[in-house]
């Protein structure tokens, strides 16, 4: 009833909302459209809305053996860093949520404060350390850096999630005679899995789109898609249809991930302040 009242009140709201949403999405849609044009059509005036779609750009991007290398780097870095983040963060968040102590609050806020350190403030030492370790242009360096910089967010997100779980249930099932393994597999795991999954999703999104360290610490071997796309910024002829095709391939998986994880993203990206 309240909804029907509201609906009749502001029919304009829906129209405004849709117009804004379409304007915001337009650059992405325009890029996707350009990726199916030929290079000549992509820069034509007046801009073409209807044309014979071609897959030529995608074919060109894939036949460039390099694209798969960059995509592989992105996947490898994102998955590697996310797994490592979770392996370290889950026990810590679990301990703080299930067994809070007087120092838990201070610990959490300190972790948050490490995230506030601007990357550029430590660019020089990290660059030198990575260089001296012989890890310039290596996936390992980016995995380690992504892990460390996402860990505070992951711990906070997992903590807020674990904190709201019913803790008595473990005790109860122990009293009911379940052994440790049963408690773990049948009681605890199903409870914590959704939180771990959405934290992992957020970590993957953050790693995938990370640009600062990717641009500064990689050259050719370990460059992820963010750096590959940036290489299109030095123009050598018309290749915007190909740029569009490469971009579509680079953002599509994360866009879809993002659509599914909006809610969790909010609590993760505001350190639990807004849920």
């Amino acid at each position, binding site marked *: 009833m309240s909804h029907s009242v*509201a*609906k009749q009140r502001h029919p304009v*709201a*829906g129209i*405004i*909302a*849709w117009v*804004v*949403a379409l304007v*915001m*999405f337009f*650059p*992405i849609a*325009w*890029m996707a459209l350009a990726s199916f044009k030929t290079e000549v059509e992509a*820069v034509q005036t*007046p*801009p073409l809305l209807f044309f014979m779609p071609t897959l030529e750009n995608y074919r060109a991007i894939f036949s460039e053996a390099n694209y798969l290398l960059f995509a592989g780097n992105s996947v490898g870095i994102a998955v590697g860093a996310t797994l490592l983040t979770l392996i*370290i963060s*889950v*026990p*810590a968040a679990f301990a703080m949520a299930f*067994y809070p102590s007087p120092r*838990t*609050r201070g610990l959490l*806020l300190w972790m*948050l*404060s490490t*995230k*506030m*350190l*601007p*990357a*550029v*403030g430590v660019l*020089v*030492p990290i*660059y030198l350390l990575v260089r001296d370790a012989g890890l310039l242009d290596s996936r390992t360096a980016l995995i380690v850096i992504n892990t*460390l910089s996402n*860990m505070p967010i992951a711990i906070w997100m997992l903590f807020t999630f674990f*904190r709201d779980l019913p803790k008595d249930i473990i005790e109860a099932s122990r009293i009911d005679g379940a052994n*440790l393994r049963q408690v*773990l597999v049948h009681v605890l795991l199903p409870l914590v899995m959704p939180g771990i999954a959405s934290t992992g999703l957020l970590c993957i999104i953050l790693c995938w*789109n990370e640009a600062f360290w990717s*641009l500064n610490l990689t050259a050719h071997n370990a460059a992820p898609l*963010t750096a590959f796309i*940036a290489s*299109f*910024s030095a123009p050598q002829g018309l290749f915007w249809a190909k740029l*569009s095709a490469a*971009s579509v391939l680079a*953002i599509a998986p994360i*866009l879809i991930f*993002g659509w599914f994880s*909006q809610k969790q993203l*909010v609590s993760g*990206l505001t350190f639990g*302040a*807004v*849920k």
Partner: protein
Amino acid sequence: MSTAASATMGGPRAKPGKKKAIGGGVNTMPLLAPAVGLLLIWMIVPLAMTLFFAFRRYNLLNPMIHGWAGFNNFKYLFEDPALLHSLLVSVILVVGVIAITIILGSILAAIFNQPFPGQGVARVLMISPFFVMPTVSALVWKNLLMHPVSGLFAAFARMLGFQPIDWFGSFPLSSIMLILCWEWLPYAFLILFTALQSMDEEQLEAARLDGATAYNIFVSIQLPHMARAISVTIMIEMIFLLSVFAEIYVTTAGGPGFATTNLTFLIYQRALLAFNVGGASAAGVIAIILANIVSAFLTRSVGKRLEI
């Protein structure tokens, strides 16, 4: 995971007498140590090195030059007009983008809070730009939309009989700001919309029955309700916007001149293009001090509401 759980769960069993003690009865150190230790190293080592280099004479191109520099790096930095200008660029970008995204974001959050057909889909379209990697968003705007010859805006200008505008040449800072707003409006919107959703529907209904207009409701009820979310959004955007890099890197490379060189880009230029480790580190110290001022507020604001 399994070692994690067994360690804590073994705790109460081993000491049944302390079962009820909160936290104290269980040794959580093995679970916490890896995370705490790594973050401690991640924070202290680079920080100490930045501070150290800031007082050294150190250029990667000329290893013969070394030794203590005292405050000279800072002196050169403060005498360099580029620093003041880059700070100004940073502030303009941060303040401008935050103001625009928060104002538009809160209005849009209130609009989307009304039920309308296809609300879910519209919301997904609305927040999509946030998930686009920064290099892609910058290049799409630079090449497909704002390019003076073959961009879409130029095409429209010509169709209407105007001279196409060279956006990044004539309005470099505004153009970068436009891209940043496009990236961050979805974020502000998403956070503020989520905050509005948690609001009591009956309160709004009561206000409507009392004859309040949409404007009244927005200003007197919804805006105060969003206050906390707005402050968190401002501070988080500030942290990220202070270190904007990729968007400048692929569009203007800091130019023309120093027009779009923010503090982050200045440090990058000093360190990795000019190989001046000392000077870059001194600028890094300033960036860290700036960020710490902001983060002190954020940490306090988040900590106040933290339930353990």
